[in-house]
């Protein structure tokens, strides 16, 4: 589904990602764990095309997308939910959804996913969305923003969702809700790549884990072996 091959990414003069490689399979939930500043967001931004990749290759469904602009990647079926949710504050929730709906429609005109069906899929995951579709983004709580951000990305009928810190800043009880939601999304056959700084939370949602530190992948494997790996535990938890 998604494949990163030795990518190097810079933010200004700073060399952030050093030869990062990872893969996400069909309908697989992969977590990228690491401390703040380890390079998680940079990895997500590199995949989405929000940051230029200096060298290496990003491939999606077997196609090289390394030089594609962000909007074309989105139209190919990469959904994205940023760390700060990135809700358009002056738009209503319904209008927030419309953005990706309009784009999704132009991508999949005549294809299987019509707008109505996507709506149902979102309601299946986040039924509470219905209660605040008329509200402006500005007036949403942090948790509601996270919901809208994920739901909005699903409006694109994506093949993969990139979620940047979807559980950050949520109360533990809400985190549980979100973990269920993520599992439901996976159940729909959508792949997930989740950036997460809490190793415990990560092991609860991931089929497979990558640990990243100082811009390098230092571990990959299943959640159990991650928890059993002393070095990973030490780097992530400090």
């Amino acid at each position: 589904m998604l494949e990163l091959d030795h990518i190097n990414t810079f933010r200004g003069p700073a060399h952030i990602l050093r030869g990062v490689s990872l893969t996400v399979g069909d309908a697989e939930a992969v977590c990228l764990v690491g401390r703040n500043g380890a390079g998680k967001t940079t990895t997500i931004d590199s995949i989405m095309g929000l940051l230029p990749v200096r060298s290496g290759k990003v491939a999606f469904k077997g196609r090289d997308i390394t030089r594609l602009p962000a909007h074309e990647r989105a139209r190919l079926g990469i959904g994205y939910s940023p760390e700060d949710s990135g809700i358009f504050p002056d738009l209503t929730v319904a209008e927030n959804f419309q953005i990706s709906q309009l784009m999704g429609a132009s991508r999949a005109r005549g294809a299987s996913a019509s707008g109505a069906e996507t709506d149902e899929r979102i309601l299946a995951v986040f039924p509470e969305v219905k209660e605040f579709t008329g509200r402006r983004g500005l007036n949403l709580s942090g948790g509601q923003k996270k919901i809208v951000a994920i739901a909005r990305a699903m409006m694109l009928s994506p093949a993969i969702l990139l979620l940047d810190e979807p559980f950050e800043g949520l109360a533990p009880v809400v985190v549980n809700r979100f973990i269920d939601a993520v599992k439901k999304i996976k159940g729909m056959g959508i792949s997930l790549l989740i950036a997460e700084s809490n190793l415990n939370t990560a092991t609860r949602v991931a089929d497979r884990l990558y640990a990243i530190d100082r811009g390098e992948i230092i571990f990959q494997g299943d959640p159990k072996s991650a928890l059993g790996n002393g070095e990973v535990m030490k780097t992530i938890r400090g």
Partner: protein
Amino acid sequence: MSLLATTQLKKYFGETHAVDGVDFTVTQGEVLALIGSNGAGKTTLVNVISGLLRPDDGTILFQGADVTHQSIHDRIKAGIARSFQLVNLFDQLTCLDNVALSIFSREGKTQRLMTLADGDRAVRDEAMELLQQFGLEAKAGMVASGLSQGERKLLDVAVAYALRPKLLFLDEPTSGVSTREKAPIMDIITAIVRSGKITAVIIEHDMDVVFKYSDRIVVMHQGTILADGTPNEIRTNDQVVMTLLGTHA
């Protein structure tokens, strides 16, 4: 004797009742933690008390005086200071100048046009001493935008602390820093606050941090106060555990 007391404080954003009739008190000398899930209204409450937002209703008493409609400037003079969740610094000024400005302001010297800021040795020494307390003395001459996230958080607190407030609000002093950096930052901040005998209100998400560093905890939920008590009382309060920690905890 309560240092700060709000009565029936309200702040609405359209349909969202961010702060909905809150009676919140802070007692002289304590380190209080304000917790609650995202959107519970913690930051809004602090924004209203510190004067960034006007309340829709209710009153705020500070040391017995009504400050509800005072300007930010007057509240700072009265002794209410705050730091910010998203670091809010003077990015093109050096760390030393960031802190020195607070000291100049406290001493009413910011209106001096014809003296050199660096010529004021007393202020400079105090600023250096403060930076040293916060472990930032090596960065004194660096512009604030060049600091790491953890250092920026510390400097943000230092800038507020340099005002020598009677009441200091710290809005998530460890958000955005790694788990490993959290404890050292909180150690530094609480040590300074306690040794300076400053009353502090800390907004925080991390339960471990909250239980470890605070004397009293106030829990907010959907704009109202859900519980108020010592760390032990809160830890065993079923209602709080249900709302905040969920059944899994």
